[in-house]
């Protein structure tokens, strides 16, 4: 599936639920599916700044695609990271750099996040894109 196909399927999945509590329960469930980071990478180097809860994100590049693993100490945040990873893992740096993440608005997540919390989400997206840019620079040398 392309990035946009995955986004569309997430939007479909969330649109089944009217009630916010069901959306959050789904988010909690998604958190359980998160490809969990190797504990040895749960260090300051992989900690994302700007979130109220702790988020660790680890990229692995095989020369073509980047695979992400992550974790968070908060369950809702873990669900949000899981969604991002679902969309952006196993992609080439170019795919990640040019990705337009419209699903965040469409599933009604952003309006539920206050600016500081939302910053956490934006920090995660920024960090993923930064990794992609860094790997791209490395391979084009």
């Amino acid at each position, binding site marked *: 599936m392309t990035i946009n196909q995955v986004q569309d399927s997430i939007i479909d999945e969330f649109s089944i639920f009217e009630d916010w509590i069901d959306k*959050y329960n789904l988010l909690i469930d998604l958190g359980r599916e998160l490809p969990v980071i190797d504990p040895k990478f749960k260090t300051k180097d992989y900690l994302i700044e700007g979130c*109220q*809860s*702790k988020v660790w994100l680890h990229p692995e590049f095989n020369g073509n695609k980047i695979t992400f693993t992550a974790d968070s100490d*908060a*369950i809702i*945040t873990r669900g949000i990271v899981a969604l991002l990873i679902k969309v952006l893992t196993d992609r080439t740096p170019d795919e990640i750099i040019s990705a337009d993440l419209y699903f965040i608005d469409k599933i009604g997540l952003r309006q539920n996040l206050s600016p500081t919390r939302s910053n956490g989400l934006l920090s995660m997206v920024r960090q993923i894109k930064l990794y992609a840019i860094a790997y791209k620079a490395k391979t084009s040398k």
Partner: protein
Amino acid sequence: MKTISEIRSDFPILEKKIYGKPLVYFDNGATTQKPECVINTINEVYRSYNSNIHRGVHALSDIASQEYENAREKVRSFINAEKKEEVIFTSGSTGSLNAIAFSFGERYITKGDEIIISHLEHHANIVPWQMTCERKGAKLRVIPINENGEIIFDEYLKILSAKTKIVAITQVSNALGIILPVDKIIRAAHSLNIPVLIDGAQGIQHGITDVKALDCDFYVFSGHKIYGPAGIGVMYGKEKWLNEMPPYQGGGDMVKNVTFERTTYNDLPFKFEAGTMNFPDAIGLGTALDYVLSIGRENIENREQELLAYATNRLSGIKGLRIYGNSDKKISTISFLLKDIHMYDTGMILDKLGIAVRTGTHCAQPVMDRFGIDGTVRASMCFYNTKEEIDFLGTGIEKVIDMFSK
């Protein structure tokens, strides 16, 4: 005394719906809501007599200056300061603390001196003193706290010495709601002729504060935490200190005579009020203090203590809930964590239920470090809150536990 529904109708925002649910506002420790009379006053200033104070010869400037000085008198009377000149308007507690840490530091603190604070301070009563210490080569000493979050008084007596130049202490812990024994702290310092600053950011709005009875040397607070506007605050200081301390900002109104060779400073309080002051909000603060007095400070204290007892009882009954800060002297604030549930998850779900609480370190990271936690969920109540709202919080917390322990 007004009934609770009369009190609530004084605050327009309390009728608001959040995600279609009635707002339960339990973030009063961060900022309080404003009664209609305060909102009207600010409106009135800009509609009827907005004009720069202490400047013009014209009628509007006269009215604005008079109202601003009336507000100063209202603050003086509210905290029972000896003189109006001892009341300086600032931008808030943080502004006041920075001003005192700088000016007092410039005048009295030198290499090897010590400044005492407590482990319960919020960052605004830590960082300015660290900056003074860095500038002057002085040392910051900290009164430790026990497992309940109370300061260990004997440890305070141990670090109090001839080297101590000032004790700067909070009246109430913002993170835990614990009331400090400031009278005892002041007496002990004064027995060695050491001045004491009380940070009233979380104290002024609960009960009665009398700076003369306390005999504190400095007292600071923010307008927005006592039902007044944001961006205005107070720095009270005994005249003898304020006269000797140099100003921390230069500009208009704080000078008597300016030439390129030499400037002489104005008298108190203007020496510390450089530039155009935030007079509309100072006047708004005056109205807020009138409002608090009209409800009655003892009434407010009694009501809030009743809410605290009710909430402590309700929340302690929830399995897996731990309250941080246990003392028989507390304001109506409860800081807590749920077992194995992140504070962020708790706050997020409570928000969706229309309940506003604060999560995080509450700008008091050392307090969190002391307990080995990243932060807490803080429900800070005040006299316009109700027992029904506390019940709603209790049910909300149970819902959170249910959602996350599946």
